[in-house]
C-alpha cells in the first residue's frame, strides 16, 4: 500500500514536471499556430487544464509530449469550430506589426517568415511547426494531429513548397558558399 502511495506520488511529481517543462514549448507552438499572444496563452492554459483533468488517460509516459500537443491541437480545433474565424491578410499584418522591435534585418526576416507561415492553411502550418520547431518525427506528428503519416508528408510537402515560393529569396544569398549561408541564417 505504501509502495503504491509512493508510486502515486512519483507519478504525480513526474506529471507535474512534464507539464511545467512543456509550458514554454507549448506556448511557442501555440504562437506559431495562431500568431496571437492572447490566444496562444489561452491555448496553453486550456491545454494544461485539460491535461490535469484527463491525466489518467495518459497510459504511456513516453508519449506524454505528443499527448500534450494533441490536446492543444484539439483545443485549437474547438476554438476554430466555435469562432469560424478566418483572419484576413490585413489582420495578419496588424498582428505582426504589433511587435515593437526595430526594423533590423533579422527582425524583418523573422516577420516575413512568420507572415508566410501564417498564410499557410492551419493543417500545413501545424505539420511544419511540429516538425521544425519541436523536431518531432513524422510518426509523432501523425499521432499529435491524429492523421496518417502519409498525410503528414503530403501536408509538409505542400506547406514547404508554399513557403519556398515566399521565402527562398528572403535571406541573404551567398552565391558559391551555400553551406555558409545555411549556417548564417541561424
Amino acid at each position, binding site marked *: 500500500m505504501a509502495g503504491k502511495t509512493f508510486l502515486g506520488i512519483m507519478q504525480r511529481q513526474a506529471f507535474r514536471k512534464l507539464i511545467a517543462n512543456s509550458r514554454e514549448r507549448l506556448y511557442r507552438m501555440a504562437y506559431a499556430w495562431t500568431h496571437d499572444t492572447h490566444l496562444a496563452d489561452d491555448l496553453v492554459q486550456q491545454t494544461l487544464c485539460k491535461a490535469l483533468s484527463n491525466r489518467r488517460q495518459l497510459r504511456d509516459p513516453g508519449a506524454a509530449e505528443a499527448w500534450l500537443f494533441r490536446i492543444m491541437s484539439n483545443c485549437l480545433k*474547438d476554438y476554430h469550430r466555435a469562432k469560424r474565424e478566418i483572419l484576413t491578410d490585413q489582420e495578419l499584418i496588424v498582428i505582426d506589426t504589433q511587435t515593437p522591435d526595430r526594423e533590423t534585418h533579422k527582425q524583418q526576416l523573422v516577420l516575413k517568415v512568420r507572415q508566410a507561415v501564417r498564410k499557410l492553411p492551419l493543417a500545413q502550418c501545424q505539420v511544419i511547426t511540429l516538425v521544425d520547431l519541436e523536431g518531432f*518525427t513524422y510518426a509523432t506528428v501523425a499521432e499529435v494531429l491524429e492523421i496518417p503519416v502519409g498525410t503528414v508528408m503530403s501536408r509538409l*510537402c505542400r506547406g514547404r513548397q508554399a513557403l519556398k515560393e515566399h521565402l527562398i529569396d528572403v535571406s541573404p544569398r551567398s552565391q558559391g558558399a551555400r553551406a555558409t549561408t545555411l549556417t548564417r541564417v541561424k
Partner: protein
Amino acid sequence: MNKDRHYSEEQLNAFVDGELDPEERSRLYNEAEHSEDLDRRLCQQRKLKELVRHAYDEVPPPRNSARGPLPRSTFFGRILAAGVLLTLGLSAGLVTHRFIDEAAIGSDAQPVAAIDNYILHVASGEPAQMRAALEKARSLLDSAPAGRPRQVEIVANEKGIDLLRSDVTPFAREIRALADSDVVFYACSRTIQRLEERGVEVRIVPEAIVEYTALDRVVMRMQEGWNYTKI
C-alpha cells in the same frame, strides 16, 4: 545534371527531417556530391527549415503576463504568473467535471476525498445562464449535509462578467443574498483588463473579488479538490 529528378520533394523533406534510413541517406549524400541541382534543392530545404526555426526562436511573451505574488505551489504559481484566462470560443474545453482526483496533482499533501465544495464558472452573458448559476449555488448550499457546511464560489469571465458588473447585472439583489450566505464571487481580472483596453469602463459589484483570472481561481480550487462546474 538532371539525374536527381527522381528524388521527390517528400524524399528531400525526409532527408532534412532525419526520416531516411542511413543507407538512403548516404545514397542521397553521394548523389548530391555529383549533382549541383540536387545539392541546391537539399540546401533550399534545409534553409527553409532553419528559417522557420529561426522565426520562432523567440516569440513575444503573453501580454500583461506580470502578476502579483502567487498563493499556491510553484508550478501553479508559474502558470498563474503567466496570466491565465479563458477567451470566448475556448469554452468548449472546460466542461462540467469533477476534479477531485486531479486535485492531488498540484499538492501532494492535500487530502481531497472529503472535500465537497464547488466552484461554479459563468462564461455566458445570457441572463438565464447567470440565473442558473445563482440558483445552483443556492441549491448547493441548501443541500449540504447537516453539520458539514459546503463552500461555494462563483467565478465569472468572458461575457459572464456582466453578472458581476454593477451597472449591468440584473441580479444584484441575488448576489447580495448569496454573499450573505458566504458564497464568494470572483470577477476575472483578465476579462476586466481586456474590456478596459477596449475603452469599456468596468464597475464590479462590491461583493465580488477582483484578484485572479477565472482560470487561476479554477485551477487553485481544483488543486484543493473542489468540484468544478461550468454553467
